[in-house]
């Protein structure tokens, strides 16, 4: 009674032996969704995202340059490049535009005519005669260190605050959240201006100002994650089995919270760099002769009419840092919560 109707498109003609059962196979194991660990999945997703990879490359490159960049030449970040020329007259390499003598020679066939004819200044020198290449990467290093250190501390403060508030709930949570609300209603500038009367200018002021403001966002995320995970069955189960608060917070909830927090960190670091740059620009941040991205921009601005090239390197570094961290943050956010259709 059975007959074949819908033509066999591949034109396959059954061969002898085709109609035998396949030998015993393992059909119970799911090979399509072979288990990969959560973090491996996140990593795979992250590295598929072009923007995220670009961001990562930019940040790694800037970090490497800020570590090794100043070593390329022999100038220190605070050294004024000067020596005695053949007439035994002291010359200072003030305000020299970016130059690579070899390249100049190659392109124009001429060499520089002045006292610094065979010196290379990739980014030029400033009005005092300091090498801007060295200063730029040294400044980037200072900015990055400030940002990493403060955001790391903020992360610890914010996470503990949010996790405790969310975990205990009830009155504790109420009180802690009212405090967050009030703290969140004070504009950052007001905090800075009050701090400025209590504290001397310098790196300390920048760090404290960042510590006081950036933890709030982290605590909100940690609390939200805590509220979400707290009610999940495996946590309830371990609680009924008598696990202690500390154990539940650190062993069970923390691992779930870490992803969103790292994403937040990636967005907070550029905020920190921005704030540092702003405060240093205004003049309450890093003090001379130290430098950071912000003071370098300020120097550049002060000399813009005479040495217009001076402002470009720190601005580019700042913009690339912002870009890189934002791309990484976006990529992480998507990698941590992938949508089904991108799988």
């Amino acid at each position, binding site marked *: 009674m059975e007959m074949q109707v819908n033509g066999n498109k591949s034109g396959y003609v059954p061969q002898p032996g085709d109609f035998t059962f396949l030998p015993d196979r393992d059909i119970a194991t799911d090979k399509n969704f072979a288990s990969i660990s959560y973090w491996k999945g996140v990593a795979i997703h992250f590295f598929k995202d072009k923007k995220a990879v670009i961001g990562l490359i930019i940040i790694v490159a800037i970090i490497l340059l800020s570590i090794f960049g100043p070593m390329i030449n022999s100038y220190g970040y605070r050294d004024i490049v000067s020596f005695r020329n053949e007439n035994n007259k002291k010359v200072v390499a003030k305000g020299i535009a970016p130059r690579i003598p070899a390249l100049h020679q190659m392109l124009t066939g001429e060499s520089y005519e002045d006292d610094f004819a065979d010196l290379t200044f990739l980014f030029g020198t400033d009005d005092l005669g300091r090498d801007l290449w060295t200063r730029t990467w040294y400044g980037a290093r200072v900015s990055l260190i400030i940002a990493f250190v403060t955001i790391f501390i903020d992360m610890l403060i914010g996470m503990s605050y949010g996790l405790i508030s969310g975990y205990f709930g009830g009155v504790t949570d109420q009180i802690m959240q009212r405090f967050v*609300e*009030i703290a969140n*209603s*004070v*504009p950052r*500038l*007001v905090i*800075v*201006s*009050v701090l*400025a*009367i*209590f504290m001397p*200018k310098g790196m300390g002021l920048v760090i404290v100002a960042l510590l006081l403001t950036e933890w709030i966002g982290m605590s909100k995320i940690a609390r939200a994650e805590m509220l979400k995970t707290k009610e999940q069955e495996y946590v309830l189960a371990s609680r009924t089995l008598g696990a202690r608060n500390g154990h539940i917070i650190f062993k069970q909830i923390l691992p779930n919270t870490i992803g969103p927090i790292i994403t937040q960190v990636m967005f907070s670091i550029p905020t920190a760099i*921005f704030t540092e*740059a*702003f*405060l240093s*620009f*205004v*003049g*309450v941040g890093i003090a001379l002769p130290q430098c950071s991205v912000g003071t370098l*921009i300020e120097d550049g*601005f002060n000399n*813009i*009419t005479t040495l*217009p090239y001076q*402002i470009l390197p720190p*601005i580019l570094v*700042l*913009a*690339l840092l*912002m*870009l890189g961290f*934002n791309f990484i943050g976006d990529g992480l956010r998507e990698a941590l919560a992938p949508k089904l259709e991108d799988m």
Partner: protein
Amino acid sequence: MTKYILKRVGMALLTLLIITFLLFLLVRIMPGNPFPSERMSADQIANKRAEMGLDNPILVQFVDYIRKLLLEGDFGNGTSLYYGVPINTVLSSCMSNSFRIGGLAILIGTALGLILGITAALHKGKFLDGFCTVLSIIGVCVPSYVFLIFLQYYFSFKIPFFPYFFDAKRFLFSSIIPSLSLSLFTLSTIARFTRNEMVEVMDSDYVRLAESKGLYGNSLVRRHVLRNALIPIVTVLAPLIVDLLTGALVVEKIYGINGIGKLMVDAITGEGIDYNYVLALGILYSTLYIGIMLVVDILYGILDPRIRVQGKAGDA
């Protein structure tokens, strides 16, 4: 809804009161001489302190301060030589400059941002979308004062078309450079946010349903996409407005604008400015910040029926 508004207003006022008190406390317990730039004998200082009520209990001083502030709009006088005039006269002239430039920047930024964001979303994946993305990345990654420095260098210095510094007599003309550079951050934030909201809404089930009803093109966007996508934009607008009205610090400093931003910079760097100014500016900034947040919160409630119309679900 009335209950909702009253609750929000109450909360805002309470928060503001607490912050004001904290600021007051911090500034008053400051160690050292409150009259930094004047040379006075110990007697004179003691007299002046008594005259200003600085020897009263802190709570009495606070109530006094608030009463004066609320009834007469009086922030007291500055104590230092240069700024030793009534603070509110200085503040009001600075505020008018700042608000006008900030307002212009908000207007430019919001209008262009919305247009750009909506166009980008409607052309998702095409050239305009890419352009919008690049522009918003630049706007977010480069601080507004850098734009100002560039605009000033090229259009006031190299090509001296615009004034190099702000000139209150030619207000509109000399506002163009600072307003433009301030608006870029707003513009890019709003463009990016609008675009993402729109794309998300266009992907939603209710737009699918509207399409399955037979709606398409402009009427679909107008009836179901725009309203849903634009309501959340109100929330990002609030911090942006606060930033622009108050946060134009470096821009004002660089472009020589006598605004509250410049005043704030002076307060932060301690250039001849005193604690009374820090206090007044702190209160002003906090009030603006909390006030705008409050207005936006209420506006959001009015726009979104899920908050405006409370109602319990009936059973099926």
